[in-house]
């Protein structure tokens, strides 16, 4: 029987980071990844010879190399990746657009947002500054009970429109709760998105994953693809190992699961062990928020219509911004429009990419997918994508005739490829902030541990190994 000091379930960003950390100091570690590729929620696929990314719009937490304490730079040091060797492209300008009411632009220079607020919401300037002072002093990483971020923000910002505009990008890029979020999560996202900002690495997510995989292997880490975990095995209230889908039992001293909290619970086949892990039923821990995402490639003539200086547009058309599972299959009243080419030093390719994200209802998509009539699901996809394009036409102008390629994925697609229940990309609304579980040698890392985005996922893997595993050795 194979035995490892550390086993990691999941070869996404948090699993790879945890693996690099552990392997770096000469320890044997094995990552088991169910899919044939690394990346988890941030992976890629090929269609018609083109590489398309699954999740990545932009990476948050931009920091210049000299800011050594910034999360991004701390993270790279921990992974032993020299900051100067990674080429980063910063965003141009992003926009929060509530048509007919207000818009706010922001960039990686936080003063742009402050100036925009001063211009459009002059009565809120002082309140916004007071809120910033509180945010700057807040330790968002200390484990503490959940507090409503909406209540916190409302104590400062009396203007409800401004409040909703501030929440809109933060929710779309990390909100796992409906219409509110935990204050710590809000502050992590506020810093990551507004105060630090967006960037993309040179190349695609595949290059970033390749860099991480290479680093992991250089340190002697092992990874097995298409190797799902069937079951977590317990013995005397400890994790003794796992059984793979292929039936192999592998034992371990410690186990890190990046599969997600409800997803990890499903891996206990002994009911007593599952109950000990968590007494909460799955519908209490599964995230309810998922998305319909469409990827468009336009020909060059679309350049005349499309904004060249906008990186990401977060829009909302309705009277009240709603961030919850919609009653319909898709909520077209709000969304994210991302132009991955509109980062600095963009090479002018033969196509222009646009990605569009809307809130979507997992159950509606699942019913269509499971329908005996197999034409229903693709027809529903086509129908909603067309409706989405009409709404987009009003916001960025009609580019339908310039489309050379398009593809969409639904909450069901996300669930199938990432194993996240209900396609909940931001995971459970219950976060396990310290990563600990009932079992003293099982830890949760990744989305359900509560750090957000790509930098957050990587930091989550690093932190769990630093705090829990190194200390025990």
């Amino acid at each position, binding site marked *: 029987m194979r035995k490892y000091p550390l086993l990691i379930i999941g070869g996404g960003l948090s699993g790879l980071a945890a693996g690099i950390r552990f392997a770096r100091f000469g320890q044997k570690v094995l990552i088991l990844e169910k899919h044939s590729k690394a990346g988890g929620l941030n992976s890629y696929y090929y269609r018609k010879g083109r590489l398309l990314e699954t999740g990545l719009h932009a990476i948050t937490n931009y920091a210049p190399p000299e800011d*050594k304490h910034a999360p991004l730079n*701390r993270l790279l*040091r921990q992974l032993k990746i*020299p900051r100067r060797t990674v080429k980063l492209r910063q965003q141009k300008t992003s926009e929060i657009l509530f048509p007919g009411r207000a818009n706010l632009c922001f960039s990686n220079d936080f003063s742009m947002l402050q100036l925009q607020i001063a211009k459009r919401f002059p009565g809120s300037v002082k309140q916004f500054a007071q809120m910033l002072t509180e945010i700057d002093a807040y330790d968002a990483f200390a484990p503490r009970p959940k507090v409503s971020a909406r209540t916190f923000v409302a104590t400062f910002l009396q203007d409800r429109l401004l409040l909703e505009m501030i929440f809109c990008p933060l929710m779309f890029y990390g909100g796992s709760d409906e219409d509110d979020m935990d204050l710590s999560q809000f502050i992590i996202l506020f810093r990551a998105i507004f105060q630090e900002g967006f960037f993309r690495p040179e190349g695609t997510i595949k290059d970033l994953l390749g860099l991480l995989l290479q680093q992991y292997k250089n340190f002697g880490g092992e990874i097995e693809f298409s190797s799902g975990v069937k079951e977590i095995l317990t013995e005397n209230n400890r994790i003794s190992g796992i059984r793979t889908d292929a039936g192999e039992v592998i034992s371990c001293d410690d186990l890190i699961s990046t599969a997600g909290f409800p997803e990890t619970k499903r891996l206990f086949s002994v009911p007593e062990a599952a109950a000990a892990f968590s007494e909460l039923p799955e519908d209490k821990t599964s995230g309810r928020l998922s998305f319909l995402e469409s990827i468009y490639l336009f020909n060059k003539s679309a350049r005349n219509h499309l904004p060249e200086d906008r990186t990401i547009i977060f829009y909302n058309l309705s009277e009240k911004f709603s961030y919850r599972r919609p009653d319909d299959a898709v909520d077209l009243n709000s969304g994210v429009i991302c132009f991955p080419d509109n980062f600095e030093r963009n090479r002018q390719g033969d196509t222009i990419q646009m990605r569009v994200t809307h809130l979507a209802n997992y159950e509606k998509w699942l019913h269509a997918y499971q329908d005996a009539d197999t034409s229903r699901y693709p027809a529903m996809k086509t129908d909603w994508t067309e409706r989405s394009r009409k709404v987009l036409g009003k916001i960025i102008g009609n580019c339908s005739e310039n489309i050379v390629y398009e593809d969409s994925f639904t909450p069901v697609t996300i669930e199938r490829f990432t194993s996240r229940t209900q396609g909940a990309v931001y995971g459970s609304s219950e976060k396990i902030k310290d990563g600990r579980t009932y079992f003293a040698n099982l830890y949760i890392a990744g989305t359900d541990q509560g750090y957000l985005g790509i930098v957050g996922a990587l930091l989550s893997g690093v932190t769990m190994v630093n705090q829990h595993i*190194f200390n025990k050795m």
Partner: protein
Amino acid sequence: MTIDEIKKVLLEIIQDIDDEADLENLNPADALRDQLDLDSMDFLDIVMELRKRYQIQIPEADYPQLATLDSCVNYLIPRLKAA
């Protein structure tokens, strides 16, 4: 190991953690943390690297004794005697 050898190893480890660290102007009696602009995660790396190279266990309670280069050396002398 001699005092000078231990010092050399420590500087080498720090350089490895942060290749831009300014070791030339390091005052051995002052806190490393203030001079190098590093944080607790980086200091864990010094501990882990020493463990990897010399199999010495440094309990968390002893971390305060690693505050300056001099105090690190003093702490390590008896532990690296045979190394």
